[in-house]
């Protein structure tokens, strides 16, 4: 089963829609609460990054027999130094974004913590594609 979501880069009040929607899909399917929690937290972090850093994009979430795989794609600026971006506390978020409570530099580390695998394809000027995988 595949679900697709558009992630608007403008409307902050819609931030988290994809994660919330997919969360209820997983719940309805009777997936365990622990897995649902891990998927939705990781998805939310990726969704917020797609909005605030990537300027919006798309999300494709797939439930396979042995894993849940979610891909976020944006055509934003890309990440120049991925190793640095993965470090806890590293953030390039603007002052305006920080006032909303984002920019702790914990998003990517959280995604890593809550998933079994995390793949990032990114380069400056090329945009960012992030896939998170949680085994069932």
């Amino acid at each position, binding site marked *: 089963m595949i679900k697709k979501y558009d992630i608007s880069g403008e409307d902050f009040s819609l931030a988290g829609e994809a994660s919330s929607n997919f969360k209820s899909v997983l719940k309805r399917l009777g997936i365990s609460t622990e897995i649902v*929690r891990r998927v939705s*937290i990781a998805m*939310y972090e990726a969704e917020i990054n797609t909005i605030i850093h990537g300027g919006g994009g798309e999300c494709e979430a797939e439930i396979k027999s042995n894993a849940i795989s979610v891909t976020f794609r944006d055509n934003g600026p890309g990440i120049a130094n991925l190793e640095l971006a993965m470090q806890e506390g590293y953030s390039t978020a603007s002052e305006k974004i920080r006032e909303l409570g984002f920019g702790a530099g914990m998003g990517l580390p959280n995604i890593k913590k809550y998933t079994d695998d995390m793949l990032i394809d990114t380069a400056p000027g090329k945009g960012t594609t992030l896939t998170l995988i949680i085994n069932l």
Partner: protein
Amino acid sequence: MKVSELIKTLNLTVATEPNFEDRDVTGCYIGDLLSWVMGKAQSGDAWITIMNNINIVAVASLTDSACIILCEGVSADEAVINKANSEGIIILKSGETAYSLACQLSGEI
């Protein structure tokens, strides 16, 4: 303790729908940086914060927090309250500091 008992113990005001589902509060987490809270708050926690924008609803929902406690007299605007009501998130309010609230909870949960 239940959310209703938490409200009495800490003398909180209910900002969202008063007929909420009275669930168990099994812990407490204090923080304002959303992705920090995302990574650390546990299911069933009462989340104490001064952050009051719309994104707190998603954070509370995704971490499965028992409720949000806005401290230090912070309040949430109507859009936040409406969103919380539609997602079944309880928002409570207090004029006290996070420290003071946590001290009163000590040994109670």
